[in-house]
């Protein structure tokens, strides 16, 4: 089976739709010279897509460009190029892939040049590197830059003050900057309309993610999950296309459940479910398929992941709220996974292990992302103690192919799977 399906991965209609949506957005971005549309660059955590749309502007996400280049095996050369120009080996590889892309003509996947942004919107400050990244871009483009300071949930909660502070910045700084750059007056009712669509799509996304609670999960909530979060985390939240996408996706998953099917993989349906895992940390993008294969070949399904919450923790109840538009945008920025403190992350992971009946938590620690990686080993120990389930730790990188050692990762994964199996056997022998 593997030999003839590898080349041609199976595509469902949701996948085709998402592909078309992404292509259309890149086409819109690369034709601003003709259309005259303005572009805002921003990040996935704290992505204010609905607000950007209120000003008829396009949303460009440098992180997504880096991921795209990673998956298309182009990031290695881009990173080397950035290093050649003086960026150290230890710097975030998303940043270097982006800077390398710029120096190579900023070519989008459609082969056309990306436009210079008209506005840099830094709407999430939990990652300090984001700030430096945009500082470098501001230096390059000399365009208007807005910083929305989002307080970190250091004490594990969003306070009234924190929310008010973000809302005040939206009103006093962010919206005026958008009006200035776009020449479009802010209309809060337009925002409400978008947020209504966001919430509808979010409901269906949550339904899809939670379908993994079925034992014999119909989805993989990490490798498949990164596709499912695609539209909502990027330039489509608040659009009718996203609403349609999630409706189609939900329908597909409903069918999978009815047919008793497991997750779909690039080589077809997963025939068996041997291990149910919760994964913490972003995936490796440069060897994404190879990495995924190490899981599905062993019948390992990821039933919940935290990476699919970096652009919003919807499964814990948050929805964009048309009744409280600016407040809900503030809550969104404050609540995304990367803005949560270590005890909150531990709580969420423990909850996932329990609710999704997982065998344990696997951490993919990212070499070049200190923001995500700091404290992960301590988190693992705590989760192991609290859940009584074994954890495991692997180390890769986001988009630097030099930091993906397949033999090493495979060795650790197989050891982990066999460890779970051995403990199961010991457990059943003792029972």
């Amino acid at each position, binding site marked *: 089976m593997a030999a003839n399906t590898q080349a041609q991965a199976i595509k469902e209609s949701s996948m085709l739709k998402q592909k078309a949506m992404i292509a259309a957005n890149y086409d819109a971005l690369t034709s601003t010279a003709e259309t005259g549309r303005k572009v805002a660059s921003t990040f996935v955590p704290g992505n204010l897509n609905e607000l950007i749309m209120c000003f008829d502007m396009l949303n460009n996400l440098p992180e997504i460009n880096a991921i795209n280049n990673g998956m298309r095996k182009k990031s290695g050369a881009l990173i080397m190029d950035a290093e050649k120009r003086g960026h150290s080996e230890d710097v975030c590889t998303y940043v270097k892939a982006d800077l390398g892309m710029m120096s190579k003509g900023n070519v989008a996947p459609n082969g056309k040049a990306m436009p210079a942004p008209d506005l840099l919107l830094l709407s999430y400050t939990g990652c300090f590197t984001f700030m430096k990244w945009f500082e470098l871009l501001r230096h390059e483009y000399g365009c208007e830059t807005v910083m929305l300071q989002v307080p970190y949930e250091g004490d594990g909660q969003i306070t009234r003050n924190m929310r008010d502070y973000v809302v005040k910045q939206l009103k006093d700084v962010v919206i005026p900057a958008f009006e200035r750059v776009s020449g479009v007056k802010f209309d809060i009712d337009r925002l409400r309309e978008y947020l209504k669509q966001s919430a509808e799509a979010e409901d269906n996304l949550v339904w899809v993610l939670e379908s993994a609670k079925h034992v014999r999960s119909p989805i993989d909530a990490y490798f498949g999950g990164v596709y499912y979060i695609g539209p909502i985390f990027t330039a489509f939240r608040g659009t009718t296309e996203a609403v349609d996408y999630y409706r189609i996706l939900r329908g597909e998953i409903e069918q999978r459940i009815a047919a008793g099917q497991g997750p779909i993989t690039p080589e077809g349906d997963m025939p068996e479910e041997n291990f149910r895992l919760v994964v913490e940390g972003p995936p490796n993008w440069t060897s994404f398929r190879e990495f995924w294969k190490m899981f599905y070949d062993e019948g390992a399904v990821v039933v919940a992941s935290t990476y699919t919450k970096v652009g919003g923790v919807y499964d814990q109840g948050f929805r964009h709220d048309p009744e409280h538009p600016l407040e809900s945008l503030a809550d969104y920025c404050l609540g995304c996974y990367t803005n949560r403190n270590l005890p909150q992350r531990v709580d969420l992971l423990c909850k996932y292990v329990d609710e999704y009946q997982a065998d344990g938590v696997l951490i993919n620690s990212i070499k070049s992302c200190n923001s995500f990686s700091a404290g992960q080993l301590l988190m693992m*120990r705590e989760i*192991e103690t609290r859940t009584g389930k074994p954890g*495991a730790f692997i180390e890769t990188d986001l988009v630097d192919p030099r930091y993906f050692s397949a033999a*090493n990762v495979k060795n650790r994964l197989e*050891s982990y799977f*066999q460890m779970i199996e*051995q403990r199961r056997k010991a457990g059943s022998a003792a029972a």
Partner: protein
Amino acid sequence: MKCFVGIDLGSTTTKAVVMDEQGSVLGRGITNSRSNYDTASRVSKMEAFVATRLTLFRRGLEDIPGLAEQLEELLGSLERNFRLELFLEQLQDLEQTCRENGRDLRFASRHKAIAAALEDIFAQLRDKLAGLFTPGIRRKSDFFRDLAGAEYMHVAEQVAKDSEVDYETLLNLYDKSIIQVENRPPSENLDDKFLNALERALHEGRAFGVADEEVLQPVRDALLVDLDETYVVGTGYGRVRLPFPKEHIRSEILCHGLGAHLMYPRTRTVLDIGGQDTKGIQVDADGIVVNFQMNDRCAAGCGRYLGYIADEMKLGLHELGPMAMQASKTVRINSTCTVFAGAELRDRLALGEKREDIMAGLHRAIILRAMSIISRSGGVTDQFTFTGGVAKNEAAVKELKKLVRENYGEVTININPESIYTGALGAAEFARRAAAEA
């Protein structure tokens, strides 16, 4: 009899362990991994079955009255002569292969001269190398390539002086041939070799004070025992290359954990420093792995680091530990990156530091890195078992003991002389359990 085999395909050596139904180790075998894992696994397995036969001989000969005191000597002599038989067979194979390769069209004008040179070389080799197997001689290595290679080059250099064939051609022939010989499956018929070896052992020198037949019969009986490979489990870096179905392959981390548990049942923490990786493993009271950490991506601070340093200093690997033990102080080496450490080494030498003191620093650097991996896996819990090739290095062990005491207090540290077989032992036990479950 039912035999359970564990094979550990490491980056440097391949190890095999044969176990019986009760879980007793019958034999161990080791070979260099080469680039051919199939052959390495076959050779190590054959070696382990040879050792198994020797165990059976021992069992058969143990009760012969009057032999008890000389049993070890007889068995030692038997094994030595058996190795000689094997060695001569391989040497003959090498000669034949060299001759065939010498008939290559490239050498068309020199066929006769090459044949004559090879004849000369191999006559000398047979003579000199057989001496390696006389009583009391310590061989530098047990691997055919090491033993035959050094001598071949030495003899060929001399022969080339008086021949029309130049040294490079003779060296080329050797290089090409040794790979073919090494990768050829060993001949399966070992019984005759055992019996020939026994004949030689009995008449080599001193008399054993028992009638030949009294010894021969138990050996023949032991040879009649059918050694059935009931279940084989493979592990180690090369495991995916083993021609086994998936369920016969286990992760080396699990195998090391279980192997250490079998050697020392009270083991809770295992440190394994192998050729290309360092593993810190925590096991429970049943030898089940609870946690593990290993080096990521690069092999800094592993066995290969010492190999590289040895090369840099023009020393043998086994000379590093003893040299470091002579140190009067420990020079600080910051880098466990193999390449950077080479630079630091030269830098320290240039500054006039003594080689012994630098060596002590390098050993400390390795162990410091291992300590970091152990602490990430959950620290050291009594008892602590140290395995892998580096466990044979006294300077590394000394440094480890010191650092474990400083960081974790008094802990029992186990180092088994057979620790290189830990992974294979665990694999054999997995094989035994799998067969029992089936």
